[in-house]
């Protein structure tokens, strides 16, 4: 990696029944996508506490991908609709914080859609790459100092002023 390329880090939340298995299927089928995403398995997208998203963004992630079963196909009947509601809530809240709401994406992927999971992940990584680093909670591009609290200005700083991730 060179210093002048920004490699985003993305946290992906998957549900145990559909999207985690889609991710598994992408692997079984040896599909390729960039290594910038790290996945967390929840039992259901309905388990996604908005706090998880804010925690991820404030701990160094540049984007968060929320994934779950397609509407109407939830293993728990309808809980992915609750994830959908929270997704909109999270985006609104981020906007209020001055963070681009596009940093959070919602993807429905069934257990059969390994290819969709791979392509959506790849395109989201590129979307975040073009948005640039978030640096939420970082002062001057340094490491997160959550104890000191987040400075809103660091969040609002335009991309051009942002220092690149050190090598």
């Amino acid at each position, binding site marked *: 990696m060179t210093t002048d390329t920004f490699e985003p880090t993305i*946290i992906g939340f998957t549900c145990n029944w559909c999207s985690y298995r889609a991710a598994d299927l992408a692997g079984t089928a040896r599909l390729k996508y960039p290594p910038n995403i790290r*996945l967390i398995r929840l*039992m259901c997208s309905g388990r*996604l506490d908005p706090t998880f998203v804010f925690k991820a963004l404030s701990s160094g992630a540049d984007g968060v991908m929320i994934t779950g079963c397609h509407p109407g196909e939830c293993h728990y009947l309808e809980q992915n609709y609750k994830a959908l509601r929270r997704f909109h809530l999270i985006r609104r809240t981020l906007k209020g914080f001055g963070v681009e709401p596009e940093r959070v994406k919602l993807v429905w992927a069934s257990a059969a859609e390994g290819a969709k999971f791979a392509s959506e992940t790849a395109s989201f990584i590129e979307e975040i790459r073009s948005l640039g680093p978030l640096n939420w909670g970082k002062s001057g591009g340094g*490491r*997160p*100092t959550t104890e000191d609290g987040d400075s809103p200005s660091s969040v609002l700083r335009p991309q051009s002023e942002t220092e690149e991730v050190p090598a």
Partner: protein
Amino acid sequence: MTKHNGSKPEVQERIGVYVCHCGTNIAGTVDVAQVAQWAASRLKERGVVIARDYKFMCSSLGQELIEKDIKEQKLTRVVVAACSPHLHERTFRTACARAGLNPFLCEMVSIREQVSWVHTNKEAATIKAQAAVSGGVERVIHHEPLEPMTVPINPATLVVGGGIAGIQAALEIADAGYHVYMVEREPSIGGHMAQFDKTFPTLDCAACILTPKMVDVGGHPNVTLLTWSEVEKVEGYVGSFNVTIRNKARHVKTDLCTGCGICQEKCPKKVVDEVYEAGLGYRKAIYTPFPQAVPKFPVMDVDNCIYFEKGTCKACEKFCPTNAIDFTQQDEVINIEVGNIILATGYDIFDARRVSHYGYGRLANVFTSLEMERLTNAAGPTNGQIVLRDGKTTPKAVGIIHCVGSRDRNFNNHCSVICCMQSLKFAHMVHERTGAIVYNFYIDMRTPFKDYDEFYQRVLEEGTLFVRGKVAEVTDAARLPGEEGKLIVQVEDTLAGKQRRIPVDMVILSVGLEPRKDSSETAKLFGISCSANGWFIEKHPKLDPVATMTEGIYIAGCAQGPKDIPASVSQGAAAAARVLGKIQQKEMALEPIRASVIEEKCSGCRICNDLCPFNAISFHEDTMVSEVNAALCQGCGTCVAACPAGAIYGTGFNNEQVLAQIEGLLLLNIGEEAVPA
């Protein structure tokens, strides 16, 4: 790096990290030794006391390695970085339990399906694997010992679908001495197999081998047969499902009916039989689909019955010797309790009208393979005579087109498995019964199973002509002499390398198998998943092809994917074996992933109450707190995320675990800490 800089409380746990090579599956892309070394040094302050890499962690030697460390190093937590937890979580949990560690203190992180198999850059993949291990370590610190919940297994089983797969499953279980409820949508069991004449490759008659099994099901003391019935609702979980079944009104009292068939004889209304006779023959408005139907009781087709239409007739009632006709009968809704469910709901055939250039439905002498089954069947509408649509002319030349609706990106990508052999069977029968010239138009010939290729050789020797190429069109527009009054098959013969126009009298379209049109609704009803095209998804495509991701629900036959009769029978028996294993255990352990309310924190706002689709949360008016019923809770965690007071605890996926995992995963960023060469 200042993240774990002492601001966190010191970790008391002793954690072992185990990184699997999986041969070269992981080690080919991830520097596994580096991951283990990194974990041992970098995560030492996080409680990692030992980190090892091993060729195959899931092997008995790999498991022994972990067990030995748990005992000797006094490990209190274990992280295994290997394949998907869906594959081996149980393996490693069991290994921990053998060494005396609570199995839920073991966490698996996937570095194969989600790292080595999807990435190519070794450096980046290694960093991602390290991040995954770090996430697992942080998470496992917050794990707690759990005891699985045990639930009793009701020994009764529900089999949905009375085709050959369902019949086999039902008989295996019933013969073992346990009760089976079989639900079938049609008036009789038998499924598609009951429509067939001969079965490949042995050419034994389908009815001869199927009907004895049907009779066995119908008369078995351990089988409750519910035909003309459909499942409406499924509640509960493995061990104790509560199933609601609608038994549609037959308008025949089954306790009085003797199945004599006089009602069918006397009924004046003829109806085209679209189901059993594939539209080629007729039935009456009161009917059994075929003479060997099980059960023998007819059903009344109220949409076509003259009495229901005009209020007069009642010929059946007049002639019935046992007064079994009941025009006022209503649907009956039945509730049953079962421990396991086998879905064998079968397939639909591809609608040949969709390939308009093959002319089905427009050109009279284009037949589907299912119609051909009825034409060749001695009990069919022509008594087994292979004749054109006019009912009398014997064809002199017949073209059989393979892969209609299969292996075609316009319709279905899948191979329907049975069509090649079915087409060869028709080729043989047409040849044998009519002496006609037979052309088989195929893309690839697929005859993989026992005695199948031998059958192909036999048909080749009989003189059937094979043309390799996808048929472009079937038309009746004659252009050349000798084509008048014929169907012309326009095809590129890819072996001869030229276009051919082959005039024939009859065209048979070997139509593919498709998932049932309502398969996604069925999947939803039973809480399992369907693939994008509609086949039920098995738990593992190779190692667990009969179970589903939902405990207690098994699948068999073509509902899982296209297959022939031997494979359907095998899968039906396999599903039965799985169910019998469960019944024998008498009770089973469930994952203790459940929500529970911390009463002191609950404000009684009742937000959670309406979120639960399983009605597991109730509100106590006296104490003003909500409570989760652990038996009903399925563990999705939606209420945990929704509680504004944080008063609901999600065992197995609690906030501390997930938040710690997020932090752990973000310990390393790409390019931040280059892997030392």
